[in-house]
């Protein structure tokens, strides 16, 4: 990693000398290793060191963006010129009222040296332990274990100068038998907090418990979703409805419903980049400090997250949720939370006469009917039938097709304990959610395993 001083001393003169009216630089440096395993052997083992610098320039209201991963003075100069050339040949962006100004952001501990320097040998030793645990039950395991560090800096000609070092550790474990599988994963800024052995035991137990799964007819059932499954729903809901763009386009499930009750009173969905029980990250890619924003509060639609451009369109202020300058979605909620309840998984199962426990989903898609947040997807790696308060047996995987507005209106219980679940943006955020018990959840199809 370059460190704050080196980045600032490299980029500050470039910004100062830029002929643009306003200039912004976003720097992302990273180095990470990932050990991938399947059939209880390591089959892919990779390391990457990379950088990215984005320049966004403004000539009046004409904007240009250019990026490079080559961090020398010549390349930076060429990239800035590319951004300027685009801006000169551009049309105006009416919503551009200037780059954000300087603001203070929360100091957070987001970097752990041990995690940053965790070696391929250490990762191999850790997964070898997982293989041995699974082997005792004549199971095999598959998954990935990654560790690494990154740093993000945002500088602009309005004196914004933000810097944050980050580390992350993530493992996913799928235990496999001839006809069943079980899954667990863990995510943290610190590799010491992963509890790999405990996660392996969860995956193994789920695999053993779901052996010889039985066929099950689709229909409406009470469903208990473990946090991983809840997070997968939230990930798609974020994409189709929690950013300002989707609200402005009218495609969001919040469009036309702000102030209305759209979910159960026990459901609150919010974003908080400063909460350290997530992959906290205190500012966005425009250097705006992150605000805690409720999208849904006690079932009522409250709003969406903004960057500076989308905020101008809605005559409001940025909430600190800008994505990198080349991203068309502009703003998304990267540190999503669902408010905890007072239940737990055991109570949820014990209070269920007939229902289904879902460990995780596969291949969810939310583009069917975005205004009603209709999602579809398959269950996988541990789907169980519950009868009279007990898990009876594993069942073959099912397809759900359901409106999340309906599902989240039928939430009977939420767990007190929440879990951080990784997403594709996990260096700078994650999804922290409880388990949920939902009534009348619609399964629409089945498969053969």
């Amino acid at each position, binding site marked *: 990693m370059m460190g704050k001083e080196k980045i600032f001393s490299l980029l500050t003169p470039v910004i100062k000398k830029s002929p643009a009216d306003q200039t912004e630089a976003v720097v992302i440096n990273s180095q*990470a290793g*990932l*050990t*991938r395993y*399947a059939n*209880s*052997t*390591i*089959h*892919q*083992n*990779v*390391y*990457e*060191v*990379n950088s990215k610098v984005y320049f966004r320039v403004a000539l009046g209201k004409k904007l*240009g*963006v*250019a*990026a*490079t*991963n*080559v961090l020398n003075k010549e*390349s930076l100069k060429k990239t800035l010129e590319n951004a300027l050339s*685009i801006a000169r*040949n551009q*049309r105006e*962006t*009416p919503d551009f009222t200037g780059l954000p100004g300087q603001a203070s952001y929360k100091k957070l501990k987001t970097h752990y040296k041990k995690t940053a320097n965790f070696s*391929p*040998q250490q990762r*191999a030793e850790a*997964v*070898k332990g997982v293989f041995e645990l699974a082997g005792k039950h004549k199971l*095999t395991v*598959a998954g*990935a274990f*990654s560790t690494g560090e990154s740093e993000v800096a945002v500088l602009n000609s309005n004196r914004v100068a933000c810097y944050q070092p980050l580390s992350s550790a993530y493992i996913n*474990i*799928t235990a496999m038998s001839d006809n069943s*599988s079980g899954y667990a994963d863990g995510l943290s800024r610190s590799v010491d907090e992963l509890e790999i052995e405990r996660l392996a035991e969860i995956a193994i137990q789920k695999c053993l418990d779901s052996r010889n799964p039985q066929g099950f007819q689709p229909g409406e059932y009470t469903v208990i979703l473990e946090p991983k499954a809840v997070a997968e729903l939230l990930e798609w809901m974020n994409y189709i409805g929690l950013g300002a763009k989707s609200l402005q*386009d*009218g*495609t969001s499930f919040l*469009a*036309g419903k702000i102030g209305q009750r759209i979910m159960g009173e026990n459901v609150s969905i919010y974003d908080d980049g400063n909460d350290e029980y997530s992959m906290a990250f205190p500012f966005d890619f425009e250097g705006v400090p992150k605000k805690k924003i409720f999208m849904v509060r006690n079932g009522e639609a409250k709003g969406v997250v903004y960057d500076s451009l989308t905020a101008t369109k809605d005559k409001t202020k940025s909430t600190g949720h800008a994505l990198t*300058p*080349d991203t*068309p979605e502009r703003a998304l909620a990267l540190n999503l939370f669902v408010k905890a309840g007072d239940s737990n998984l055991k109570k949820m199962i014990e209070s269920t006469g007939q229902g289904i426990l879902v460990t995780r989903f*596969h291949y969810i898609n939310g*583009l*069917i009917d975005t*205004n*009603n947040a209709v999602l*579809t997807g398959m269950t996988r790696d541990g789907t169980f039938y519950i009868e009279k308060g007990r898990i009876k047996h594993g069942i073959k995987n099912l*397809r759900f097709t359901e409106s999340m507005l309906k599902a989240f209106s039928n939430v009977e219980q939420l767990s007190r304990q929440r879990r951080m679940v990784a997403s594709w943006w996990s260096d700078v955020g994650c999804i922290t959610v409880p388990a949920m018990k939902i009534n009348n959840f619609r399964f*629409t*199809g089945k*498969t*053969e395993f």
Partner: protein
Amino acid sequence: MKENIKETIAWLRKKGVDYADIRQVKRISENIRVKNREMEGVSKSEDLGFGIRVLYRGAWGFASSNNPSKGEYKRMAGLALDIARASGLTQREPVRLAENEVYKDKFISLCQIDPFKVSLDEKLNLLISACDLMLKNPGIRVADTSLNFFRSEQIFANTEGSLIEQIITESGGGAVATAARNGETQWRSYPNSHSGDYATRGYEFIQEMRLLDQMERISREAVALLSAPECPNQETTIIVSGNQMALQVHESCGHPIELDRVLGTEISLAGGSFMTLDKLGKLQYGSPQVNIYADATTPGGLGSFGYDDEGVKAQRTDIIKQGRFVGYLTSRETATLFKQPSNGTMRADGWNRIPLIRMTNINLEPGEVSLEELIADTRQGLFLDTNKSWSIDDKRLNFQFAVEAAWEIRDGKLGQMYKNPIYTGITPEFWNTCDAVCNKNHWHVWGVPNCGKGEPMQTMHVGHGVAPARFSKVKVGGAK
């Protein structure tokens, strides 16, 4: 830079590796998006780096860097070797590679008009004009247009002596008209949804798209969908449009024939495959009308190249022949299972990713009938057009697709339009009901630029040469 590569290969040979290869890749891209005549984003990007893959005592290691200096080449080579040693800690069976010829060659993809030399003004004018045409319809709330261009310049070298250079240019784009009323939105896309159509061609591909000719139609259809009835639940005959067939082939055939999935090495993320080894040569995957092949030499296909990222020459392989499952997509490692050479489908998403078995162009052979004849030959059914959503289980059996629009077919004619159509099925059951594929006049190679696989995630650009096709007894319904 070639000197760094040659010196590093020589150093790795001295270290006694079983095999090693190096890919140095420079990728440039230009992305332009105009929405409601406003500049949604115009950006250019440059990405340069190298990756070293080492097989040492039967175990893999890979290290990559964005700094192609002599010192960094040496550091990454050492690191790749260390990582391979770490992989060896759990190795049970050493990895072996199928034989491959040594090539010294250069491949340049088709490109008549260099898209990076076409002025930004011309590109913006095209997209603004497309927005204007869509916004002429007062029912359109969002007119969204985009153009995207990519060029990768790659040098590949391995310890067996291959040295291959490739320059591949890709162009693509499209438009979406979104109509909104009373809290409901409906959209129509051209030429395809999810950012349009793509090819390994130059700006001539964009010109041939004739974007402006279709804006009035998609706007009219998007608005009409708002008033259309919900697609009724039924089991019926369907004719699937070409652009939706591309995704149907992609999800239900392209992925399950990836041999790494079959062998369980993608199980934790993308999943496995129902097309297991015991089914090769035996499974009646589809009806005799179904002939599917992988072809990395399809002219202009988004999955076309000269050599794959293990240095195997681009080729054509039969996958489904008269409905029978006859072949997988393989790598040099997995092909040893059949004591055959690789069929050249190892592809990496840039210098910082290892190659994985990926689709090239997975093509459905055209049949004999025209689309008009096929519709005329259908007494009752639905014509389903343009993908909206896609989902399939982790062994690629239970699929569900939503499409943008459906039209009733009654007594050989298109009639009522329906909104929110969804169809679902089990892969081999579905393909065995296929009784006709349209002829070569309707056959087009659709570019799919967003195929995800692997950890860390890799996004691959693949192609599907397909024509509309007819299937029977398919479960269809509405989203509600």
